[in-house]
């Protein structure tokens, strides 16, 4: 029996904009089991990064709850949250802006340990920093260099080491490889996978690139304009997608191969933004199969097979 480490219930995050309320995350539910990876997939503006930040309370939720090991984190005070942060960490997309340019590599990795008084003896702390650098494959001689002197891949390793410096059990990986070159991307993906195996970590892996999560995730959740539209075990989502958006997204990925040609589904229109959304399927204006009902009411997320959830009116027909 595996236990649920994180559960998200009816989570909403709205932003005020000059043109109205932006429903960045709009009533989403999911949970993750310990040691597993949930891939959170979608295109720009779908609310995936906002979700990641609300889970860590880097942004305050507008409504809804996030339970981490049974604790409702939205109700924690500053001290309580600070304790939890030792276990819940984040790795950022941009390895160039996520590291303080005025701190050296070792200072960056050391900061969380020092700040949370995990190790107070400077000698021991120094050793721990070296150990972490070894763990993420950073050469020790880089410890006194500044981030801007390093390439994207190494900088991302620093970010990973920082996230692991505490007593980390759960990490939100926010597009950790999308700013990197392919060859480096593969290095970082393998590292993350290996760390998960070694340390028993749980990941939420946020990305726009389905091919990346395929390798990585146990479950995949697809978001579109603030809504969770499909969620399934990875294997199943890739072989048997149901939502028209998931299908289009899957087919749209350019395959680096000449044999299996996949029929492309070209969507019409562009991604809009969910400002004051109407009560309809948010995908209906781009969907190639949209019916009247899609424009009239919002489809609920329903379990259509064990573990496979979809929010689409058309599936029933």
């Amino acid at each position, binding site marked *: 029996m595996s236990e649920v480490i994180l559960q998200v219930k009816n989570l909403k995050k709205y932003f005020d904009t000059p043109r109205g309320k932006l429903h960045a995350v709009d009533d989403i539910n999911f949970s993750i089991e310990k040691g597993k990876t949930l891939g959170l997939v979608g*295109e*720009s503006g779908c609310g995936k990064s906002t979700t990641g930040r609300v889970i860590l309370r880097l942004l305050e939720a507008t409504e809804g709850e996030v339970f981490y090991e049974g604790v409702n984190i939205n109700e924690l005070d500053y001290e309580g949250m600070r304790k939890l942060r030792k276990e819940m960490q984040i790795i950022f997309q941009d390895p160039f802006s996520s590291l303080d340019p005025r701190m050296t590599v070792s200072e960056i990795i050391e900061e969380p340990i020092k700040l949370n008084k995990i190790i107070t003896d400077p000698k021991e702390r120094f050793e721990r920093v070296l150990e972490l650098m070894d763990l993420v494959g950073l050469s020790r001689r880089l410890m006194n260099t500044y981030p801007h002197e390093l*390439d994207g*891949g*190494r900088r991302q390793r620093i970010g990973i080491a920082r996230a692991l410096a505490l007593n980390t059990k759960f990490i939100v990986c926010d597009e950790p490889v999308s700013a990197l*070159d*392919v*060859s*480096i*991307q*593969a*290095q970082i*993906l*393998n590292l993350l996978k290996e760390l998960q195996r070694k340390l028993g970590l749980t990941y939420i892996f946020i990305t*726009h*690139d*389905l*091919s*990346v999560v*395929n*390798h990585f995730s146990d479950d995949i959740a697809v978001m579109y304009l603030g809504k969770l539209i499909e969620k399934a075990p*990875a*294997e199943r989502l*890739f072989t048997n997608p149901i939502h028209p958006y998931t299908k*289009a*997204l*899957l*087919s*749209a*990925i*350019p*395959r*680096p*191969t*000449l044999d*299996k040609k996949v029929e*492309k589904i*070209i*969507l019409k229109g*562009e*991604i809009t933004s969910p400002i004051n959304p109407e009560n309809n399927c948010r995908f209906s204006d781009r969907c190639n199969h949209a019916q009247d009902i899609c424009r009239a009411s919002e489809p609920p997320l329903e379990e259509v097979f064990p573990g496979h959830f979809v929010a689409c009116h058309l599936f029933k027909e």
Partner: protein
Amino acid sequence: MSDKLLKIEDLVVHYITDDGVVEAVNGVNIGVDRGKTLGLVGETGAGKTTTALSIMRLIPHPPGKIVSGSIELEGTDLLSLKESRLEKIRGDVVSMIFQDPMTALNPVITVGDQIAEAIMIHQKVGQSKAAQKAREMLEIVGIPGNRAGEYPHQFSGGMKQRVVIAIALSCNPKLLIADEPTTALDVTIQAQVLELMKNLKDKFQMGMVLITHDLGVVAEVCDDVAIMYAGRIVEQGTLEEVFNTVKHPYTEGLFNSIPNIDDRRDKLKPIRGLMSDPYNLPKGCSFYDRCDYAMPVCETQKPPKIHFGETHFVECHLYQEQQDFKLNGGKE
């Protein structure tokens, strides 16, 4: 190898900075046939964009400098042309699409005027005629013509890239250089734009150099492929040759680094290490320190060019003695 639209020979481009000389392009040879598409593939810093800008003769100078080589477009050596002649060629015979559509359009000029400008320069027509043609171009790339009077900020990223394409194609160029035209776009929008480009390529009968880091995009759009590493073409051939009979270890590494969407059990095998410091390229093969097949000779000597048939070649020591050397495919 006849009827070449574009022929680049031994192109060398350096950037001279305070910290030293960056050898961005060191002896590139590529050719594009009429109506064909060449995919120029490589990672950040490989010299792809520098090569493209050299064809346009838009290398920022200083610090950039075309040191040697030749670039022939329909038999005319572009490197010997005066600026005034180049202005007649740019936008007319050869056009370019830049990577980031968000910054590629002038924010204070309407999109219609930005398209019409090229038409007025090259086709010597009046303002109203050019505006008319600009609206037609917008329709061709899938934007209603009545939006010609709007400014770039009123368009989304995908739409902006369509406008950029409309500008580039407004004078029926014979060669289009597209520098990562879909990298900044979302996947579903990328699919739309790639589809559009494929259609337009046939419609306008033009040759194209498609610069990308994405082998998936290459497989969809290109006829020929050139793999670039540290300022050199390390492998080149037709799409089938390069995809089906990979010869260069770097090309192999690239393929192994891409997660396979259709097989989730497929193992990722990254290329180890980093690209060499462009200020200080190694004496021998630039890929030497990252290569799984490296031999002593690779460290000291530049690899020779080895041909496999008329169109396929690599620059690699592995095939010097044993032409039939087989890469192990990286899959243990």
